[in-house]
């Protein structure tokens, strides 16, 4: 399908594909097996400007938006969903700063992020606050010299590997979600340590773990935006980042589809390649249709985000939900086409299926997002009545 990308977008996409094929493909199975953080690949991505893609030009970025980020994420995910997660979460950890940070904060951090010298992470989830993000308990008490942070964040991508963390905390416990604020914390701040590193089903090249704060003092100037706006900032951030999860899902689905077509072409049963079987053709065609439809929706949502439109919750949720469900279905069917071989760890399709699952869960479980879409439908209906 022709998506009428600009020269710059095409360049970004094809360079990301080249890095994925030359650098990630040869090691993806090993990274997955060993749950190894892909530092060498991070360096290659950084050297090729990939971390500049989502940073504004004033701060040494390329000034791209959601669509450019999606193109990179899609291409990396086509080869490895785990490496793509590690990369993409840097945008998540930077957006709040880009959007609400002061000039001074941006000058201090964004050029290093753009150069890939310092990785970032975003932390909102806690043991009791997953889909219900407003249930966070971590506190930041105003003290002399700044804020005293206490609490534990859970399931945080890039935990321990990133150097810069955007953390959503309660600066006012009495006000619930309205007392939440976004605070920037640097690694190695006293009182900030890392807890358990999780062992995961998929995206195993990415690091997921706990952030533990015990009387961690951060200076006042690390507050991003205003106190009390943290929850709204987070919701807005996810509206902008969800097409990226969609792009990850599209990439994983694309990778699985290609594997399935390759296999079906090679695998001979009953004297013919199995791709000559109508039942297999039907599966492959359906996978291709679903993947392309998901891509179209993701790109459209990303373009809407980049247009600066304010109400994007519904569209961005649609892109994430649809694409992630497609990724799960396509990887499952790709494995089915590959049969017993597909089920074996020597073949990459089972990894793709494991990697796909998380896209239905993180950055808003698909059920929660369907709720959000339905809420918009009801609101619109109410307006016309």
């Amino acid at each position, binding site marked *: 399908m022709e998506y009428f990308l600009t*020269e*710059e977008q095409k360049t970004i996409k094809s*360079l990301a594909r080249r890095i994925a094929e030359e650098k990630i493909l040869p090691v993806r199975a090993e990274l997955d097996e060993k749950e190894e953080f892909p530092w060498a690949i991070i360096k290659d991505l950084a*050297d*090729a*400007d*990939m971390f*500049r*893609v989502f940073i504004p030009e004033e701060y040494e970025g*390329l000034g791209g938006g959601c669509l450019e980020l999606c193109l990179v994420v899609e291409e990396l995910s086509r080869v490895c969903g785990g490496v793509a997660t590690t990369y993409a979460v840097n945008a998540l950890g930077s957006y709040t700063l880009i959007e609400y940070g002061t000039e001074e904060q941006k000058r201090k951090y964004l050029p290093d992020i753009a150069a890939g010298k310092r990785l970032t992470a975003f932390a909102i989830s806690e043991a009791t606050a997953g889909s219900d993000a407003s249930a966070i308990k971590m506190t930041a008490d105003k003290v002399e010299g700044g804020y005293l942070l206490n609490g534990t964040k859970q399931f945080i991508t890039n935990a321990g590997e990133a150097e810069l963390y955007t953390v959503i905390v309660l600066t006012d416990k009495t006000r619930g979600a309205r007392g939440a604020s976004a605070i920037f914390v640097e690694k190695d701040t006293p009182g900030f340590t890392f807890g358990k590193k999780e062992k995961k089903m998929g995206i195993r090249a990415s690091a997921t773990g706990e952030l533990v704060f015990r009387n961690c003092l951060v200076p006042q100037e690390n507050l991003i935006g205003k106190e009390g706006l943290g929850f709204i900032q987070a919701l807005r951030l996810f509206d902008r980042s969800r097409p990226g999860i969609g792009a990850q899902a599209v990439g994983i689905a694309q990778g699985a589809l290609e594997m399935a077509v390759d296999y079906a072409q090679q695998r001979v049963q009953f004297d013919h390649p199995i791709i000559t079987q109508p039942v297999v053709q039907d599966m492959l065609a359906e996978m291709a249709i679903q993947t392309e439809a998901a891509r179209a929706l993701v790109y459209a949502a990303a373009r809407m985000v980049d247009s600066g439109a304010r109400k994007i919750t519904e569209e961005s949720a649609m892109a994430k939900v649809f694409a992630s469900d497609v990724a799960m279905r396509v990887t499952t069917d790709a494995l089915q086409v590959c049969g017993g071989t597909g089920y074996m760890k020597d073949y990459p399709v089972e990894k793709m299926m494991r990697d796909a699952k998380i896209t239905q869960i993180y950055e808003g479980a698909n059920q929660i997002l369907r709720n959000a879409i339905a809420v918009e439908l009801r609101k619109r209906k109410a307006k016309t009545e």
Partner: protein
Amino acid sequence: MNVVVCLKQVPGTTQVKIDLETNTLIREGIENIINPFDTYAIEEGVRLRERFGGKVTVISMGPTQAEAALREAISLGADKGVLLSDAAFAGADTLATTYTISAAIKRFCNFDLILCGNETIDSGTSQVGPQLAEFLNIPHVTNVGAIDHMDEKELIVVRSLDRGYMKIRVSLPALITVNRSINEPRFPTVANILEVADKQIITYDLNDIGIMREQTGLIGSPTRMASMYESKERRSCTILQGAPGEIAKEAVTKLKQAHVI
């Protein structure tokens, strides 16, 4: 330290088909790439420039589409691209090619060192580097896997051999051809790719270089292509049965019949 890197644009596949009527390679629909060995030469040139200063000039002889390869080399860090292009150059063998390139280098390039890939993936003669050095009357070393030392006057290079290696001291100006162990080429950056998209590549033709038509292209090439064919991989398998001694005898007989031994 001024470095000239020679590069060739080649078909990006090993699955090239031959047009049996014209005896030429079918290039339509096949993406062209920089000869992979040459990317190591570019990287080494850029690294030397980063250490010693100076300029890296990439030079290629070929049709105008080879501009893309030169642009890519610039996106990888080279300073300038020079294309030698003229219908009169077509059909050149390695002798005519190196004569043409050497004449252009003499006329247009200031250099301390010339870097070439050890071979190309399309014709694979490994002749261009050494012949170029002969035309330029400078020393050369082939199959270099590392540069151990370099100063303004000389360099010490490590030449890979089948078993082991050889360290060679060579005075500058010189030409070396490099293999894959010399470095790991970097990726271009997005910004560089976009920047070079509309960069002018300097093109020189026969008259600019100032050589005679008879010395280049097909007429200037003593090599004649007798024929060209697609080699078909024909394998047949025979399983011999019987006592080990008999099988061995039969195997030897068959191998002799097939002129293998």
